[in-house]
């Protein structure tokens, strides 16, 4: 136990002041105020992989690591769409996930918004439209904000989520 405590003390706080870009930092503060005003200080996001290669998921995971610590902005990921204010959708929508994505969207209470995350979610990306893929997320459910990148970095994701709140 002592070693665990020692390691915690030795590591200290690595969480960075994010976003490092000053203009984004301003946006960050504005948006935190938005979350406070419109979502009582807490924005609940349900992440849905609608057919991605898992690259986007790895970077979304990184948002929870101590460097980004997205929860300090009042943003957290929830297990059920019924608890969510927003959906963060990745991947081209595979035809096998089309129904599940639509059902998840319907299960999310209104008012809600949808963020398409990654090039595939924005346009279909490398997988485009085919017998197996519906292409971008907006071909299945309405999309409010798109975050491009393959995959978007944690910084891009943060900026996109914050921009969605400004919308």
């Amino acid at each position, binding site marked *: 136990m002592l070693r665990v405590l020692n390691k915690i003390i030795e590591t200290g706080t690595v969480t960075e002041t994010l976003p490092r870009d000053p203009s984004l930092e301003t946006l960050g503060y504005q948006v935190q105020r938005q979350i406070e005003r419109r979502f009582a200080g807490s924005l609940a996001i349900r992440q849905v992989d609608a057919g991605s290669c898992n690259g986007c998921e790895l970077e979304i995971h*990184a948002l929870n690591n101590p460097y980004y610590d997205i929860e300090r902005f009042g943003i957290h990921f929830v297990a059920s769409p019924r608890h969510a204010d927003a959906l963060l959708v990745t991947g081209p929508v595979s035809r096998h*996930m089309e129904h599940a994505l639509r059902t998840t969207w319907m299960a999310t209470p209104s008012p809600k918004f949808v963020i398409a995350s990654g090039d595939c979610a924005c346009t279909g990306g490398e997988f485009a439209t085919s017998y197996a893929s519906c292409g971008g997320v907006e071909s299945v459910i309405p999309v409010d904000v798109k975050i491009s990148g393959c995959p978007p970095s944690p910084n891009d994701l943060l900026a996109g989520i914050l921009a969605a709140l400004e919308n």
Partner: protein
Amino acid sequence: MSDTGAIPAFLARLADAHIVVERAPSERLSPARVVTLAAADWGADGKLAFEASFRHAGIWGDHVDDEIRLFACLVSQGNYLVLACGVPANESGLASHAPYFPGVDRMEHHLHDMLGVAFIDHPNATRWTRHQAWPEDVFPLRADFPLDGRAPRRARADNDYPFASVLGSGVYEIPVGPVHAGIIEPGHFRFHAVGEQVLRLEERLGYTHKGVEKLAVGRDAAGLARLANRISGDSAVSHAWAACMAMERAASLQVPPRGQAMRAILAERERIANHLGDIGAICNDVGFAFAHMQFGRLREIWQRGNQTVFDHRLLMDRVVPGGIAADISAEGLRLLQSQCVELSRELDGLMPIIDDLPSLEDRLVMTGVFSEIDARTLGALGYVAKASGIDYDLRRDHGYAPYDALEVKSPCLTDGDVASRVQIRAEELRDSLDLIENLLRQLPEGQVSAPWPEGTAGVDGIGLIEGWRGEILSYVRFDADGRVARFFPRDPSWFNWQALERLIHGNIVPDFPVCNKSINGSYSGHDL
């Protein structure tokens, strides 16, 4: 590979059984040996291979003219043998290998759903890759099937999949997915449980099927590499390397030594990033948040190093046909070196904490035990196999460049539980750090890539790589115009997913996440 050992002995046994095989020229699909046989002998051949203790490394098909060509890859002691046969496209019945090699069960279903090959004595005839996006009498990988397909405007849910049911007093069913509770890929798990104990788990995958094999058709070499980088986002380097190796062997293109060394550095960095993330996540699944945060921190530092040196946090699009995309500056090389030293120091502090924490031991030891016999039966790969007594690593046992000139260590344990899989990955972390330091120390000078030879046409090749999940096999065929006509990347997850169904038996439902994470199959790499 040498022509000694199991393969000539096996070919002699085939001759004894009056199975006539035709040996392809030795350069075809080198370093594997290729033999062609009559479709009628396919089943008998599988049986003999089973009796000769071969491992089945996958089966795939290719629609050429009026024929479906079938390939099965068998392995013994690092020697690879490819069996080939052809069946008429309009009447394509073939004996199944699944009765002898249950690990290829799903791959045969995939072959049926995608190419329309009927396996006449398959032990459980059902669909697998196909849900409801295309009708059962059309096959997307047939040459006459258009990429856009003939799908209905809206695909309906796959509600009538025939799950096995378990009856009995107190037995209840838990359906999970395809949308899971965490930030993970989609798939469906059907549990049958009594109290907290799992009686049976049935997986239903295929939700992330994006038509990768069809999308590959008609691409050039660079386009195929880009696609291969996105088969499974956590294995960008491994899949791209396997695909490029297959293309380069088909084209007889030599990658410059510096390019080969850089590819290995990329592959080992990918292995380290994934092992770091997963060790943390496994600890988190049993409530030890400290390790999750610490390993998450180390993974983040590592990924930032990737961004600085290779311009991509997940190392996508670094491996290209002929070598790697760009050379690294002297400053970049120094950072790679110092990151190894730093990570090694961090692990010295962290691993002892993980190793003797009673609460971790309580949850991980004897949890999710995967027996050696199951591992051999299924043909499990990578750390899943190594933790269950199968001492195999392509880098050491099938020595491809640059590993053939290095000393590659590979751990092996026999308990087969979650703790063993964690320990294998912890040891692989150390071994990969050593490999990177060795590679950096002896980094050859010169070019990092060779130009792609225009005019590569009508040839095929096979790529074999030890990715971080285990052996990846890639098959590529170019058509007469030099475009990709067939691409089949076989991720280790095809076998390892089935390991999860077996090892969860008798465990409690709340231990499923940690068992699942200790296997960490790729959904996208399996669903294609």
